[in-house]
């Protein structure tokens, strides 16, 4: 009864005060790096570990200004609200100087207003949403502490158009497609770009677009609807639970070729996760990727990684593991020049960072950034603070933005496009006539 309890309310008021005062105290010695991202996904863990290796190396070399670099992490659970809480935690409880993000697009969009508020230098290694680059263009002063260390969706789509023109249209002779995309910011953005570019540039007509929920477990009606459109192939855009859709594609033996973007297929664990039921699909992949030949410096990073983490998932870093590793190196190089992570001075220095990784005497990978106002020739627009990508062959201005990789039915992988990086051929599954 209320009465019984409220009688003793007096003592209780004191208790609440005590509880509230037992607060975590913040300390601000040395430099602190915060990681924000999903700690239960392979891609999130890749970024977490990539950054950890870079920080270990920096600390072994004396840390920053003689102080060891501290590394704290906060889980977003791939949930927008949790992401906001996690960012607040890093900014206010841990008072970090720099944040490395392994968040998906929607989560990044959730915490971005908080980043603008706290003005903490932040580097995204996974999110590729072009809308965020647009925000940097529109509100440079507010967004200038933000950097994106992965090629944006637009670069992704452009490369795909080239692949469509060269391989799908010219080589395979296909001229119609049905787009199957998940209902996320990523799915919507890629779909827009593919639909607007694929038709005019490669002569492939979009017959239908099917949107599905990321929690879908049974794809048979969706695949049937796709097959019913009579299109020559299916273009899939999937970043969440992608194993499900591709394993069902194989299980149901959908009689159409399927290519597109399948984020799960970017990792070595894909084969294990699908239980070998994921062959026959190809996907666009940021570099470096499965099936991608590595330059010696990146190979060394991979060796360290597999020695340290080789017995737990992901055993081999995903693309954003590389991005996080090189991104931390760049962020600290910039901080050295800027004298710390000042929100005004640091971005200036970060923009100057440009790591060129060579293999066999030519540029193989490049970690640099587009400057504000610098126009990319082919799309005719600017990409301030986005990783410097090159979407025009022969890619001697840097690395390709993306490659297309193929999973064969026997579980082997290869890069199939562009030709400079190719190690294999495009293939359709055996059950497709």
């Amino acid at each position, binding site marked *: *009864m*209320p009465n*019984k*309890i*409220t009688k*003793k*309310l*007096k*003592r*209780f*008021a004191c*208790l*609440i*005060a005590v*509880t*509230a*005062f037992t*607060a*975590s*105290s*913040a300390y601000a010695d040395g430099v602190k790096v915060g990681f924000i991202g999903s*700690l*239960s996904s392979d891609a999130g863990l890749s970024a977490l570990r990539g950054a950890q290796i870079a920080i270990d190396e920096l600390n072994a070399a004396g840390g920053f200004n003689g102080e060891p670099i501290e590394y*704290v*992490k*906060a*889980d977003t*659970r791939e*949930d*927008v*609200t*949790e992401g*906001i*809480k996690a960012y*607040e*935690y890093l900014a*206010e*409880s*841990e*008072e970090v100087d720099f944040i490395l993000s392994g968040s998906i697009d*929607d989560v990044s*969009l*959730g915490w*971005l*207003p908080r980043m603008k*508020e706290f003005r903490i230098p932040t580097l995204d290694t996974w999110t590729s949403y072009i809308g965020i680059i647009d925000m940097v263009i529109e509100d440079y002063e507010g967004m200038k502490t933000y950097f994106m260390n992965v090629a944006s969706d637009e670069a992704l789509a452009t490369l795909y158009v080239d692949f469509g023109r060269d391989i799908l249209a010219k080589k395979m002779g296909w001229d119609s497609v049905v787009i199957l995309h998940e*209902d*996320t*910011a990523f799915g*919507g953005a890629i779909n827009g770009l593919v639909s607007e570019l694929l038709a005019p540039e490669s002569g492939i007509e979009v017959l239908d677009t099917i949107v599905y*929920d*990321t929690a879908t477990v049974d794809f048979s009606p969706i695949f049937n609807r796709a097959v019913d459109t009579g299109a020559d192939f299916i273009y899939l855009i999937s970043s969440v639970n992608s194993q499900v859709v591709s394993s069902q594609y194989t299980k149901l033996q959908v009689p159409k070729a399927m290519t597109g973007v399948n984020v799960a297929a970017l990792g070595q664990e894909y084969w294990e996760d699908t239980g070998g039921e994921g062959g026959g699909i190809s996907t666009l992949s940021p570099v470096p990727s499965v099936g991608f030949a590595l330059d010696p410096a990146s190979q060394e990073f991979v060796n360290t990684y597999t020695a340290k983490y080789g017995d737990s998932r992901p055993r081999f870093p995903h693309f954003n593991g590389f991005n996080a590793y090189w991104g931390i190196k760049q962020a600290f190089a910039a901080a050295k020049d800027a004298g710390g992570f000042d929100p005004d001075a640091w971005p200036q220095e970060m923009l100057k960072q440009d790591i060129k990784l060579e293999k066999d005497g030519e540029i193989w990978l490049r970690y640099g950034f587009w400057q504000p106002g610098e126009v990319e020739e082919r799309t005719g627009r600017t990409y301030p603070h986005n990783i410097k990508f090159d979407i025009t062959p022969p890619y001697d201005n840097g690395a390709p933005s993306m490659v297309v990789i193929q999973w064969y039915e026997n579980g082997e992988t290869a890069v199939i496009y562009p030709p400079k990086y190719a190690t294999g051929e495009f293939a359709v599954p055996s059950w497709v006539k």
Partner: protein
Amino acid sequence: MTNPTKKYLLLWAIFIAVMLLLPEFVSKGTLRTIIFANFLAIFAISWDVLSGRTGYISFGHPFLIGIGAYTSAILSYRFDMPIELSIPLAVLTTTIGGTLFFLPALRLKGSYFALVTLAFMELMYQLVQVIRPDLTGGTRGMSGIETITRGAVNNYYLSFALMVTIAISMWLLMRTRFGSALSAIGMNEESVRGSGLSTTKLKLAAFMTSAFIAGLGGAFYVHYLGSIAPRALFDINFLFTIIVSALIGGAATIIGPMFGALFLTILLEALRPILPGVERYLIYGSIALIVYMFKPQGLVVLVLDTLDKLRSIISSRS
């Protein structure tokens, strides 16, 4: 005004004074944690007014909070309506809309009521995605929604003011004969009817009060977060946190849900450095389960009982 009331008002004043001075003593990170605790307390009080008192367990509170949050978010984000207008409209929509939806359910008893409200939450999850996704943002929701104020301290004061206003209003309301009648329904609904009271009317009033608070809390919550997505809102974990806050603190009181919300939020944040992931819910849930199984009256009673025991031990020794 009777003497005990004066005493309680004094206690409220002390509590408010302590909370108002809090930003002077704790870090901003702790304040952010307490902001979430404040919102959770609002939702838990809202749940408790209906379910804690009358014993009609609502599993559909995220549905009500969702109406409030989505209405205000859509009006301000899509139609550029000022927040001063969108929040009252959202509260009105929640109270009226929620009542229309739940009206048939209020005639059901016990588990059936719980089931139907659970179904409402699922329904809302589906509807938000399907109906007018151009307005609701579909599965991915909306972000970049206008916020009322910036910074931890400002938001702390705002959320605390809202929470404490709701808490005191509900405390005053529940001290009236209306509050007694609601508790009586929880003990024996037939005897309430047998005392010449329309239980349907009482339950409806309790429900509308509950929906009003849920709508108010939901609308302010969305303008604090600045983003909204159906998966985070119409989620079993969210529902669980609301209900457990009310129960772990002590149902059918006002201090219970407030304390429960603070306890759970602080526990969850305290676990973050040790277990950063969803694994926290394993510990969190286990504590909730154990407390609930062994002390269904809640932690407030548990703490007070322990203090009493300690006091008697000390006094018997000296």
